[in-house]
């Protein structure tokens, strides 16, 4: 064990609150310490001059890692170092000088213990990503993301489940809330895409297999193509269940004009996004047909979005609240907008005694919106889903909103329904993030490590990890766990729970914690 050089900071009241000379006297007699020095401040130029060229293991007694960590990393250079927070954790919270000094001594000896037990820096895992991206889903989000990535010179492969590009955008008439024509927007995205050389498009293709590789992920597609990519973008969007608003918009766009009154039947579990979109449609219908009746049948349990009522009133759109026994009858399946076919909509509203009968028009059902990524593929990507099939954002506090695991991104509606503009902006943001990730120097990721000999393959770690980092593998000597460094956050849940102590933390190992406790007890 190399001897440690300690540097103490005198600034920020540390000098007044803590008896630094006493500390110096104490640590001079500790065998582990080579020298101890008190500087007027560790964050100024004088300290930098003093520390230039200093070699060996360094221990700083100063302030917070989060606020001043960078300064100390710079000061230490390539030397192993440890920063002990004597400011917020000691000097600023304890008024009595003797007590504060005793605590500072305790903190410093715990720092020494941490330094002496820290394993050498070999446990980290280099992340040198391949500049190639796989985009799943060729909807607006996927197309926008592909375009932005291709513009920046990344190779992109885009796979689409159906045989046509465009996703939801292909089915809608106008874009909510900007009112832009969907077809125009799609063509804009699509035409820009065609000019790019770096893009490969596979239609009627799905992701079949995903394994980790050194430079990213190795993917296998259903058309037997195998590729290695540095990042994956999930842009699978949304799907309508129990409703036909998109169908209606598609036909409206396709056939143009229609005749007769309109009924929007709102289901109990309607997504507010659909309500907004339907109102937007209704307002545009009102502009086309100033005289026709447009009615929303809304169950009592549905809470209308803010401004919905006012906007409906303004455009003379009726809202009828109340439960409709048996629902709106008379129309089954997909409505028809053909003027020659008369539709009968019979609505029984016993509570009000009034109903709308004898309509020739259309009835649109507003149902649920769910995420459209199949569950198997979500499992493949190790992204958890909520009950509505949306991809749940994990560790949203630690990483930004679009990153699920390092290198896997979720864009647009796959998170939750969102307006088209937001979707496209989100796609651009993600593209920028991917590019930034590629351009950054290769990163080192620390991860928990498994002692293969000690591992009994009980599967505890694989079951408990919220990120799915440990994987159980069959080997010649029975099942063994393996931790994939990219998914590990090093939270320590598996480390503390392993029945046979087979997992260890390369940064703060159990030995370190034990040594810290011991040195705390001895001081």
């Amino acid at each position, binding site marked *: 064990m190399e001897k440690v050089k300690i540097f103490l900071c005198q600034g920020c009241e540390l000098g007044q609150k803590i008896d630094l000379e006493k500390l110096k006297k104490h640590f001079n007699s500790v065998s582990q310490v080579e020298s101890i020095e008190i500087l007027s401040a560790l964050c100024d130029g004088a300290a930098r001059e003093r520390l230039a060229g200093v070699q060996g293991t360094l221990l700083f007694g100063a302030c917070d890692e989060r606020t001043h960590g960078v300064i100390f990393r710079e000061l230490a250079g390539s030397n192993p170092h440890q920063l002990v927070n004597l400011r917020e954790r000691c000097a600023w919270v*304890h008024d009595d000088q003797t007590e504060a000094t005793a605590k500072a001594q305790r903190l410093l000896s715990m720092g020494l213990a941490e330094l002496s037990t820290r394993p050498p820096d070999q446990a980290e895992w280099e992340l040198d990503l391949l500049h190639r991206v796989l985009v799943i889903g060729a909807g607006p989000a996927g197309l926008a993301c592909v375009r932005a990535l291709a513009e920046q010179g990344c190779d992109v492969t885009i796979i689409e489940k159906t045989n046509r590009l465009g996703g939801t955008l292909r089915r809608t008439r106008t874009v909510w809330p900007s009112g832009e024509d969907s077809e125009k927007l799609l063509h804009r995205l699509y035409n820009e895409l065609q000019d790019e050389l770096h893009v490969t498009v596979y239609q009627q293709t799905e992701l079949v297999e995903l394994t980790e590789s050194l430079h990213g992920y190795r993917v296998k597609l259903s058309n037997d193509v195998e590729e290695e990519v540095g990042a994956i973008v999930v842009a699978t969007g949304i799907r309508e269940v129990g409703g036909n608003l998109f169908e209606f918009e598609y036909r409206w766009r396709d056939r143009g004009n229609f005749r007769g009154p309109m009924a929007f039947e709102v289901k109990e579990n309607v997504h507010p996004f659909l309500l907004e979109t339907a109102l937007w449609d209704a307002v545009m219908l009102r502009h086309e047909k100033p005289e026709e009746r447009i009615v929303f049948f809304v169950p009592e349990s549905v809470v209308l979005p803010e401004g919905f009522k006012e906007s409906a009133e303004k455009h003379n759109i009726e809202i009828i609240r109340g439960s409709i026994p048996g629902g709106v009858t008379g129309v089954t399946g997909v409505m028809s907008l053909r003027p020659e076919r008369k539709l009968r909509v019979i609505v029984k509203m016993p509570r009000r005694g009034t109903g709308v009968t004898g309509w020739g028009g259309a009835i649109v059902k507003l149902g649920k919106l769910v995420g459209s990524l199949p569950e198997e593929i979500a499992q493949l990507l190790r992204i958890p889903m909520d009950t509505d099939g949306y991809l749940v954002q994990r560790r949203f506090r630690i990483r930004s909103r679009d990153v699920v695991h390092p290198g896997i991104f979720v864009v647009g509606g796959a998170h939750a329904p969102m307006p088209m503009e937001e979707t496209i902006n989100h796609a651009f943001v993600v593209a920028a993030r991917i590019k930034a990730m590629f351009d950054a120097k290769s990163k080192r990721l620390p991860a928990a490590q498994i002692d293969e000999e000690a591992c009994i393959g009980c599967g505890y770690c694989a079951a408990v990890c919220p990120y799915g980092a440990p994987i159980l593998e069959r080997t010649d000597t029975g099942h063994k766990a393996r931790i994939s460094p990219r998914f590990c956050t090093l939270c320590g849940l598996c480390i503390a729970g392993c029945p046979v102590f087979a997992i260890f933390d390369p940064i703060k190992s159990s030995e370190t*914690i034990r040594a810290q406790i011991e040195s705390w007890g001895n001081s």
Partner: protein
Amino acid sequence: MKILGFTCDWAGFALDYAGMQRMSYSADITFINLRCSARFDMTDGVQALANGADGIFFALCPLGDCHYESGNHHAVSRINHFKELLQIAGLNPERIGFAHADTTDAVGLKNEIESFCSKIKEIGDLPSQVSDRPELVLRVAAMKRVASSEPVRWTLSKELELVRKGNVFDEKLDPQDYDTMIKHILREEYEKGLILENLKEPCSAVEVAQATGLGAHRVFELIVELERETRASFDRIEHERPLYVEVTDG
């Protein structure tokens, strides 16, 4: 009085924040930073007791707000079972305390620390409570054995999974039943630990019973079980009494 604190990185923010606002709290408490509170291992707690901690305090994120998904749920269950272990060992479980603190909740955390420190002051130092120190050492050694024993670790670790998610047959176990089971296992392992501590030298069941304060019948029962687990073995017969000894690895 010495109190050891464990804090997760994010509750540690609140702690630093308290420092920035120059709040003052007792200097008896010293914190160790863990990345997540789920990193807390019962062995560390026992280690702290062995190193003279009069109290152990945990600062963790509010439930449902863990920065690692469910880490603090696991931590809380571990802490509660650690309290149970203390009770079984005849120590005051109030020596263990924890507080949930948001990253900015400096005032709340400071108040919790203050009240915990004053509570420990009331309860008193650990050695002064137990009449003779060697017995405390024995207890802590037995607790150490409990904390690192495989069945205990396994049942503790699996608790949330079996109670909340269900087992392979999709059966959810009753939380109270599971808790009772853990208590039972903790007690049994603790008693076994006490016995093993006394079996470092060949010793008869009656002598062990006298040393540990457990009934002779119970001791004999547990020794038989330990023999079956190959953790203890028959050594020789002396004065017409069989002597047993702990089996050490290698």
